[in-house]
């Protein structure tokens, strides 16, 4: 980068200087006054010439609960990877609110801005107790020195108990996470997401491996979160999608095929052709 570019970069009007960015309070910087909290525009990701995302354009409104469906390999997980900073797109732009360019930030920075993610394959810290898993996820200053001297306050402890209650793992609080069942791990990961107290939740196939009853509870939980939070859910289970969705987006070969409420989408002939398979 030339000196001039650097200077321009430093004095960009649309951006807050990095050192002015508060470390873990993002509310002031996040500007959702125009409606959407997330703007994906013309995002393309290719692997060895294969386009996993192909000029994808998608907006998520603040406080919305959005379901994303699509066949295997449609690019749903890749889309989440792009939002959370794991994969860098070939081109396109990803903005969080109107001001924050996510493509310039690293994963921890993005997480610190209040974007939480649940992975498709449940990933928890298997060597740690359930309690510690939640403790580590808690929203707080996560710099090295503060972490070294961090102690749980009573308030934080209460919050953990609360979440343990929600995810139904109260009795397993001191169990090693590696010993949990698949469904329990899913719940634990949802719990970790809640502990982060994120503004935007990205949830990749949350009900895989859950019983019917658990699925219902998950649906309840996610709907209750919407409003305060914005939630993006990727799911295959059509029952589940129908039970929670207000707006559904269908991804196909890396771009949006159709969008609307469940009925509209289900009746769209193109969707029927490629996804629902009749």
């Amino acid at each position: 980068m030339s000196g001039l570019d650097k200077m321009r970069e430093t004095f960009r009007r649309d951006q807050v200087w990095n050192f002015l960015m508060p470390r873990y309070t993002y509310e002031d910087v996040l500007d959702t006054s125009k409606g959407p909290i997330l703007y994906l525009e013309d995002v393309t990701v290719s692997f060895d010439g294969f386009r996993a995302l192909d000029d994808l354009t998608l907006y998520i409104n603040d406080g919305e609960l959005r379901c994303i469906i699509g066949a295997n390999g449609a690019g749903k997980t890749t889309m989440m990877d792009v939002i959370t900073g794991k994969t860098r797109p070939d081109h396109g732009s990803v903005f969080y609110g109107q001001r924050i360019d996510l493509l310039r930030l690293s994963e921890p920075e993005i997480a610190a801005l209040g974007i939480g993610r649940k992975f498709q394959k449940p990933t928890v810290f298997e060597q740690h107790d359930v309690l510690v898993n939640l403790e580590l996820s808690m929203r707080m200053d996560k710099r090295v020195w503060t972490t070294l001297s961090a102690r749980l306050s009573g308030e934080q402890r209460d919050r953990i108990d609360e979440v343990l209650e929600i995810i139904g793992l109260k009795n397993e609080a001191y169990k090693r996470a590696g010993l949990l069942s698949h469904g329990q791990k899913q719940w634990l990961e949802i719990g970790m997401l809640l502990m982060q107290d994120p503004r935007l939740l990205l949830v990749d196939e949350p009900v895989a491996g859950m019983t019917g009853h658990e699925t219902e509870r998950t649906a309840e939980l996610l709907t209750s979160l919407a409003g305060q939070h914005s939630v993006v859910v990727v799911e295959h289970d059509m029952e589940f999608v129908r039970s929670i969705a207000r707006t559904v987006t269908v991804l196909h070969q890396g771009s949006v095929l159709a969008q609307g409420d469940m009925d509209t989408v289900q009746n769209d002939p193109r969707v029927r052709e490629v996804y629902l398979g009749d």
Partner: protein
Amino acid sequence: MSYLQQYFQSDRAGNSMLGALLAIAILVPILNLAVPESSVFHVSTYTVTLIGKYLTYALLALAVDLIWGYCGILSLGHGAFFALGGYVMGMYLMRQIGDRGVYGNPELPDFMVFLNWQELPWYWYGFDMFWFAALMVILVPGLLAFVFGWLAFRSRVTGVYLSIITQALTYALMLAFFRNEMGFGGNNGLTDFKDILGYSLQSDYTRAGLFAASALILVLAYLLCRNIVNSKLGRVVVAVRDSEDRTRFLGYRVEYYKLWLFVLSAVLAGIAGALYVPQVGIINPGEFSPLNSIELVIWVAIGGRGTLYGAIAGAILVNLSKTWFTGVLPEGWIFALGAMFVVVTLYLPRGLAGLITRKQAQT
């Protein structure tokens, strides 16, 4: 008071070890100095030095365990930090020789006179002062670890890649230190030390003092490490070991955590090296050899990585058996060492400590 009690109860094996360390820190010097040689309880100076050496190895093992056992970073180059600490101490000891060297030059160490150097290289300045050398014992390994770790962790070099480039690091340093032009005595390294802080290194009292210092510093380092691994930072570090990506998505800057721990570990290794050199009386480029670094990994593996006392026990055990083997059956040692690598990784992934805890769980 109850807080303290709880604190100590959490690591019983470690506490027994601390107790034992404190006990020998006091007892061994007394048995060496105050008990007459004819007595069965007398501990010879040779033994004092030998155990003292093991204690510095134990400190080194602790350093490796901290990053490997807890953070999953397998460094095959920790011997380099140990050796650097050793060289820094060696430079101080060299300067203490003054004009008592073979050539009687008050400024220049013998090997420089031998190479026809006219003046002291700039990087030797200040090493005649103990406080400066002590500072460098921390700064030199720390700085190298910082630069190396910053580059490596920032670009997310992990796993075997990291292991091998740490090995390459120590290999490169070894080659460099073998060169006479480096100004560290080339092949022969630094040796023929006379005294430390004004006390003769030949005296039994100095040796006992060095021994006690090694034991005490080991105890302090143990407490420090235990504090760290029991803190929230310790839990984050284990989380990094388990799933680095996940930790990142929770908002932790993994590379800083790794860097912090790596630097700390390197500094501990450097201190161990600094304690080692006055006791054995020599430091040479052989200490940088990749074999040394990988050997010390097996101490930790045998003791049990991920437990602090395991690392210490492993270092002492393996070195005891090395001393014994090389006395009785020198050829056998390499076979035994090789077999240890294989057996421990195949059958004892948690080391002896793991074996004991498993036994405890069964009963």
